[in-house]
């Protein structure tokens, strides 16, 4: 049922897009071809409701998140996009009185099933937070933290290799290689955020969730992180929550628009930004509210 909808959307979108902007159309068609040959969605969410005590924060969210793509969740503050993101690795479990209904599957398996261990789930679905939150430890220990608790390294050399490659993939190695044993909290904000990304990568997750990763950073640090996100797409499935619509347009392949706890529209980023189906999406994107 949902799949049919999606395909209907896609057809409709590509027709419309052609009329507006041939360039986008080209770019878009190629993405669409990719999507057609792609493997099934990495994460499928169906009818997800979230309650904080008696207040309902999310209403029946259906999304398919595709592997090796960046999916952006946009919407005004309090619309539930962060709540949804935190459902994907069950970070909502640690909030008192929060309950989740509906189904979310990762590679076809329900992540809210009783048999699922959140510890393993979170190792597969890593998370980067809004505010850089390095532990008050050295740069090295920050990155080594995850591999240590999951026993990913067999010896010291192995751990060194993991730390180095994680820092390298986060584009931070050159900047910190001489200060691996200085506190991670002493780095600049942008470096701290890349350290947190390196820390997440070090556990070898399949999915990385990013909750407004650039909102506390300056434009230069932001553009570095955006480049990094684009690169990381080759190896990971990325879901990013952002307030910055240009950022969503720049880094993501698909965008979901949330409003008042409901997912209003979901589709290819180009479509959402150039020719959305819903009036509310168009109003939000053109800055009429939010």
């Amino acid at each position: 049922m949902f799949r049919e909808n999606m395909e209907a959307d896609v057809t409709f979108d590509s027709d419309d897009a052609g009329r507006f902007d041939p360039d986008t159309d080209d770019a878009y068609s190629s993405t669409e071809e990719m999507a057609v040959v792609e493997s099934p969605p990495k994460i499928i969410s169906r009818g997800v409701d979230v309650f904080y005590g008696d207040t309902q924060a999310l209403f029946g969210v259906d999304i398919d998140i595709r592997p090796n793509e960046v999916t952006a969740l946009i919407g005004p503050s309090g619309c539930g996009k962060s709540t949804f993101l935190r459902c994907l690795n069950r970070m909502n479990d640690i909030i008192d009185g929060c309950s989740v209904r509906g189904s979310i599957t990762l590679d076809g398996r329900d992540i809210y099933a009783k048999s699922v261990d959140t510890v393993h789930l979170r190792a597969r679905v890593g998370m980067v937070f809004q505010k850089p939150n390095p532990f008050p430890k050295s740069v090295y220990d920050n990155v080594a933290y995850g591999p240590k608790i999951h026993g990913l390294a067999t010896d010291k050399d192995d751990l060194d290799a993991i730390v180095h490659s994680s820092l390298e993939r986060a584009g931070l190695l050159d900047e910190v290689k001489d200060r691996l044993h200085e506190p991670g909290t002493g780095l600049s904000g942008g470096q701290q955020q890349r350290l947190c990304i390196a820390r997440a990568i070090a556990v070898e997750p399949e999915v990385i969730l990013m909750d407004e990763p650039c909102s506390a950073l300056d434009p230069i640090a932001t553009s570095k992180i955006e480049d990094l996100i684009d690169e990381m797409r080759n190896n990971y499935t990325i879901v990013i929550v952002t307030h910055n619509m240009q950022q969503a347009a720049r880094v993501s392949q698909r965008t979901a628009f949330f409003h008042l706890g409901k997912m209003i529209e979901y589709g290819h980023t180009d479509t959402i930004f150039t020719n959305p189906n819903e009036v509310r999406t168009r109003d939000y994107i053109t800055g009429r509210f939010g």
Partner: protein
Amino acid sequence: MQLTILLATLLILTVIGFHMGRSRAVSTAVSGIGHLNSLPSYYGIYVAVWCGVPAGVVLILWLLFEPQVVETLVVAGLPEAARTLPENKLDLLLNDIRNLAVGNIVSRDVDPEMQRAADHYASIRRMGGAAMIGVVLALAVAGIGFGRKAISPELRARTRIENVLMVFLIGCSTIAILTTVGIVLSLLFESLRFFQLVSPVEFLFGLEWSPQTALREDQVGSSGLFGSVPLLAGTALISFIAMCVAVPVGLLSAIYMSEYAASKVRSAVKPLLEILAGIPTVVYGFFAALTVAPFFRESGNLFGIGISSESALAGGLVMGIMIIPFVSSISDDVISAVPQSLREGSLGLGATKSETIRRVILPAALPGIVGGILLAVSRAIGETMIVVMAAGLAANLTANPLEAVTTVTVQIVTLLVGDQEFDSAKTLAAFALGLVLFFITLILNVAALSVVKKYREQYE
């Protein structure tokens, strides 16, 4: 009685001054209250301050210095023979004159000379009292007049009041600091007197404590040994036992309360735990002496171990229970202050709750926890009542927790209880012990505060 009425009058005048100032401010503001520099009530306070403060200060100074002035005047009126008496005899004479004047019992026969002196004294007091009332009230009224006259729309009453407040606050903190300095100085001077009698080396490094000094030269076995090492060792032993109880229990319960307990449980358990801090230490002493110590002795008997009925173990254990709320309360605050983002970061990497606590939260909170523990240690070192009741008075130099030991504070108490002359080595020793204790706790507190300070900088 006279003074109460005077104070009440002063207060009433101040209130009147406030209202006069306020209404005057309103009436001077011809073109509306908006043209006043400050709100009308600030002008009221301005006048009230002028009325109350100078009068109050004069009153306090008067009360402080009146007795000396009166005494000097009375002495000046005495005949030559009395004036040249030695100081302590003169004091006695003055005391009798005072008693005679107010109609108390007098320790000697009353001669006309003395009667005259007493009358003189009474008349000076009467005059003084009247003069005080007059001066204070005149000052208060003059203050109202002056303050009221100074009121104009341009007067910056608000900033003036701010300055008055600042001076007042400085005064309060100065009192606190001066008191501390005074206490330290009194300890220091008495200790110096002690060290003239007993050498500091013997006091600090002597291994025996037996503070009995001879009243007569021919008494036997009362040479007086003032080696403080057994006392310090006893203090250290009992504090150590106390911390062995308080730190694990306090810290672990803090971790439970801040990380695991549901908010309902937390709001019920935390106050309960803090009730422990409200129990008077004497009550802990009963508990230690009547319940815990006999229990240890009898359990020891079962296994054939001799445990004295007053033991370091019993005292230390109960003291540890007393300190639990200190450790748990401070640790709980410190752990709760660790940013939630660190917890989420760790949990988001797939760490379990206990891994997060052990590897992220405790290391981040450690300096604060250490600070809290050091504060608890200085509390343990200063504790007296429990030790008096449960650990005994015998100054044994031992590391065996099953024997009776004594602490610095307990010895200070025993040295000063009862009738004592204040110039013997025995009593003066108490001040020297107090000084040592003061330095130990001071160092611990400074260390604790610096550790806590370092911790504060961490998240900024």
